[in-house]
């Protein structure tokens, strides 16, 4: 049954409502919103003088109006201890989204915690400790003391290697520069924790080591480049669903021809046409449909590739482009690696490369490579792949590969270089042979001179926003420890978990959960047995349990997560909107989200929780007589999150000295693009496009090409899994819910649409298995099992399914095997399993629409 709110009117924002800047805290695009709040006993009126919009609201407002908001954009929240009305609506003046709201961001208000309207009551309000056989609310002092007592005992009796940490590295939500600094200063400053992992993967590593090693930071262009490109090439990404308003507001206008005047104005000396697009994806996504509707099918090339064979395609494209003489030889000669004697004579080699500020976000280091990084000539020779061989491996039509090469690099009329922007994301990042595949794609952009120039760029499209500034992580090493596997093997005694939910978002999840439950239960049982004992006796009992193979788990989050079910101490955090928070988006646009409401209960910003842990560690270590060690935990005497920002970002981020809260506040939802390079009065001057000067992030400033030789399915266990199971279980995101569902699992609108994760299946497969739409099926293989709801569609090919990732009602990671690449990057996309029916459509599925997602005016 379609969920309906039965709301037939909303309070009107008064003319004098308080207004705060908000950057949406969900995806990397970072759309601008405005938060309007006003006292609960007041409201605006329909007369133009009585409302925020200054228009007559007794009349119907029309298409694209700024003078309307949906019920999802409204709530009643606490602000400085008082209930207030709150409306969070898209900002028409933000250059990112121009007033568009996504199905995720436009529900921000509804997804605020409200004791008045009853939304998000799942939010944590108080610290909790496992006590008397369940979680009991307690004070910060009590909870932090227990954390510090156990942690200090373990790291002093053993070493800091016994402390495992899972910590977010993202911006937005509860991340951002303030919180990554707070946690980073604790674990990489006061301590040198080595066994650490990031929120969505089992190690502390970059997802795009290759491009960084080649000297090309992965967020190198501006969103405007999507408006200026002759051709957009997108690989393993589905931007209509996952970077929605970047796609709608910057790609679609180009494909429509609506940016032609802008192209002619900015680049007057060359011919221009409406943009064309190449989409590399084994599945026909709604992005393909939208592009065809917009540009006409003749201007859309969907390369429906065999899963995991992207590198071969990129190599064939490079080969063909080079053989046709379409490379940008001037760019290659002047800005990429020189071989042998040429390098020794290179005048530019004496010039320092880019400062490193371009490696944004500022995380993890990039030294050592799994393959050779070299000159264009050598990479071309070793990567050389014929169209025919590529067609055989990728399953593509040879003519389509040639067409793609033409669209990427065949000179325009008059001999002008074609401007091609390349975007990529999880399809190759969490795909086969991450490093070489990423490198092979960047090769294409470098060979065609498409980095640092208008209409170019070779960029990851990104998931979340970024907001990373931490002390060096050099001690972690490379490859970084495979933390989740180490935990399975019995590693670690204390586990601090910051806004990570491995239970929904790790690979080999079936086994991970089994072991984690067992190890944390050992500690719970020890704590239960110590009921009524003193704090000292309790700590002794916990330490004895972890020495016997148990794991003491501290969970810092905004909700009680799935992995939080194993926790012994739970610490409540606030998120975006409940604290001042800075982040940057996919074009490095940095903004300040102003605090517009109170956090729940006594919840605190993560950075101040980290400070609390540090201060308690200092106290406990001092009491233990470890004064030298205790002294390492000083420097956390922040009073506000702005103190954290000033200690972290301003002191440690390249260009940070130019950035202050006051300046960011004044620059509103357009902010500036990192890195900051100076000031114009009080306006921060940023960097719209990286590498515009042709100097890349290598020692000599010359970019490197990547040798990418095809080795089939690279990660251990993948080929065996493929050979022994019937269905590809491709997987990824959907438009309606945010990634790991942390707030959406408590949102009726979302739960109503997908009460279970969908698995898209071809009708032929339904017939073969004897299942129908809405049926609950089990997806199983030798590594585990999970469940999903059958959604029939011919947009996937027979034997190739697509399952929604990270749903709490069916964790896709349960069937991902443990195999990773040489730098511990998980390979989610190449997964095979069998499928069997569990149940006919459950009650919550009755009445759901199972129609096509593709726009069709009929």
């Amino acid at each position, binding site marked *: 049954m379609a969920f309906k709110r*039965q709301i037939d009117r909303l309070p009107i924002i008064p003319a004098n409502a308080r207004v705060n800047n908000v950057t949406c805290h969900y995806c990397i695009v970072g759309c601008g919103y405005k938060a309007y709040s006003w006292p609960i006993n007041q409201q605006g009126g*329909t007369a133009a003088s009585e409302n925020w919009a200054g228009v007559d609201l007794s009349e119907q407002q029309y298409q694209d109006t700024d003078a309307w908001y949906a019920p999802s954009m409204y709530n009643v929240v606490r602000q400085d201890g008082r209930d207030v009305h709150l409306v969070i609506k898209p900002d028409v003046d933000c250059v990112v989204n121009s007033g568009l709201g996504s199905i995720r961001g436009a529900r921000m208000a*509804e997804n605020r915690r409200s004791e008045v309207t009853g939304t998000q009551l799942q939010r944590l309000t108080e610290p909790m400790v496992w006590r008397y056989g369940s979680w009991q609310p307690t004070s910060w002092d009590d909870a932090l003391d227990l954390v510090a007592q156990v942690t200090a005992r373990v790291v002093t009796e053993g070493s800091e290697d016994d402390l495992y940490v899972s910590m977010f590295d993202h911006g937005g939500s509860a991340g951002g520069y303030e919180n990554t600094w707070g946690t980073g200063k604790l674990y990489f400053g006061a301590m040198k924790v080595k066994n650490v992992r990031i929120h969505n993967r089992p190690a502390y590593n970059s997802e795009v080591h290759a491009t960084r090693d080649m000297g090309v930071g992965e967020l190198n262009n501006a969103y405007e480049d999507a408006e200026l490109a002759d051709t957009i090439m997108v690989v393993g990404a589905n931007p209509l669903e996952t970077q929605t308003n970047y796609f709608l507001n910057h790609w679609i206008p180009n494909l*429509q021809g609506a940016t032609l005047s802008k192209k002619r104005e900015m680049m007057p000396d060359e011919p221009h046409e409406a943009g064309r697009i190449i989409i590399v994806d084994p599945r026909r996504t709604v992005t393909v449909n939208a592009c065809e509707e917009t540009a006409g099918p003749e201007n859309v090339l969907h390369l429906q590739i065999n899963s995991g064979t992207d590198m071969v395609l990129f190599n064939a494209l490079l080969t063909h482009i080079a053989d046709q003489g379409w490379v940008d030889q001037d760019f290659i000669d002047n800005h990429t690696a020189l071989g042998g004697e040429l390098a020794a004579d290179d005048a530019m080699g004496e010039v320092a490369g880019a400062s490193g500020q371009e490696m944004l976000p500022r995380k993890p280091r990039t030294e050592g490579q799994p393959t050779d990084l070299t000159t264009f000539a050598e990479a071309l020779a070793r990567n050389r792949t014929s169209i025919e061989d590529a067609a055989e491996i990728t399953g593509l039509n040879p003519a389509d590969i040639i067409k793609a090469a033409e669209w990427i690099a065949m000179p325009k009329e008059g001999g002008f270089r074609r401007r091609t922007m390349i975007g990529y994301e999880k399809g190759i990042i969490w795909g086969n042979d991450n490093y070489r595949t990423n490198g092979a794609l960047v090769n294409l952009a470098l060979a065609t001179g498409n980095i640092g120039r208008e209409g170019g760029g070779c960029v990851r499209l990104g998931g979340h926003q970024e907001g990373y500034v931490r002390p060096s992580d050099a001690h972690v090493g490379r490859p970084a420890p495979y933390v989740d596997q180490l935990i399975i093997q019995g590693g670690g005694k204390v586990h601090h978990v910051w806004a990570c939910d491995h239970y929904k978002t790790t690979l080999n999840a079936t086994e991970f959960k089994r072991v984690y439950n067992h190890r944390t239960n050992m500690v719970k049982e020890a704590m239960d047995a110590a009921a009524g004992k003193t704090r000292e006796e309790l700590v002794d009992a916990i330490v004895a349990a972890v020495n016997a193979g148990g794991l003491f788990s501290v969970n810092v989050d905004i909700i009680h997560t799935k992995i939080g079910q194993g926790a012994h101490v739970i610490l409540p955090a606030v998120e975006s909107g409940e604290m001042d928070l800075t982040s940057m988006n996919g074009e490095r646009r940095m903004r300040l989200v102003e605090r517009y409401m109170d956090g729940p209960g006594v919840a605190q910003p993560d950075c101040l929780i980290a400070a609390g842990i540090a201060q308690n560690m200092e106290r406990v270590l001092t009491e233990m007589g470890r004064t030298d060690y205790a002294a390492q935990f000083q420097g956390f005497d922040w009073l506000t999150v702005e103190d954290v920002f000033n200690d972290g970002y301003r002191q440690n981020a390249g260009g940070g000295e130019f950035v202050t809260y006051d300046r960011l506040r004044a620059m509103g939802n357009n902010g500036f693009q990192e890195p900051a390079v100076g000031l114009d009065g009080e306006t921060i001057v940023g960097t719209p496009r990286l590498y515009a000067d042709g100097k890349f992030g290598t020692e000599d400033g010359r970019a490197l090409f990547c040798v990418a030789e095809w080795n089939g399915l690279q990660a251990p266990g993948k080929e065996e899994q493929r050979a022994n199971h019937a269905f590809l279980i491709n997987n990824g995101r959907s438009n309606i819910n945010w990634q790991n569902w942390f707030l959406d699992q408590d949102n009726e609108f979302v739960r*109503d649409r997908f009460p279970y994760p969908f698995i898209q299946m071809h009708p032929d497969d339904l017939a073969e298995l004897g299942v129908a739409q809405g049926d609950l099926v089990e997806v199983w293989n030798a590594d585990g099992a999970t469940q999903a709801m059958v959604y029939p569609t011919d947009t996937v090919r027979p034997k190739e399914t697509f399952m929604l990732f990270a749903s709490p009602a069916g964790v896709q990671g349960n069937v991902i095997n443990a195999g990773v690449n040489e730098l511990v990057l998980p390979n989610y996309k190449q997964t095979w399993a069998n499928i069997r029916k569990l149940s006919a459509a459950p009650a919550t599925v009755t009445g759901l629409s199972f129609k096509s997602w593709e726009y069709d005016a*009929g």
Partner: protein
Amino acid sequence: MKCGKLVDVGRRSFLRGGLMTGAGVAAAAVAGTGAAPAHAQTSLARVQNPSTRLANLADLVVNEPLDITYPDEDSPGVLLKLGTPVQGGVGPDGDVVAFSVMCPHKGWLMSYNTADKTLNCPGHFSRFDCEAGGQQVWGHATQNLPQFQLRVDETGDIFAEGADELIYGRLSNVLQA
């Protein structure tokens, strides 16, 4: 159909000459409503919806959309006889439904696809299932499509008497001075 054809559709074009969307939206004139614009009493907790005659059952042909407006002439909608019983359906076959045709995302006028009985938005590709209570099949709106509550009297006249979601472009479903 190319997206963007409707970019220039004026604010009130649907009142001037019918919807300029593609196939699917009935070209029929707006069915007579007869009711004067209603103004809610502000003292009520919910707005007082008008009871508006949209059409007679005899006017409907299976899967042929009929343009309507409700709760007033500035709020375009569609009246449908779908042929099979559906959520919220009225009439002897339980198959008569009515929806707003302004997309709840950005207010673009949607067109009816007779093949799969969906309403499709040319602005940003959202689509809604007329056989599933207006559930958004895929799209950007943060609510399902407002469905008009219907009543059929003994003569077969169909009346709209409310909506189950906020209609795009108005902060009160019944406009108030």
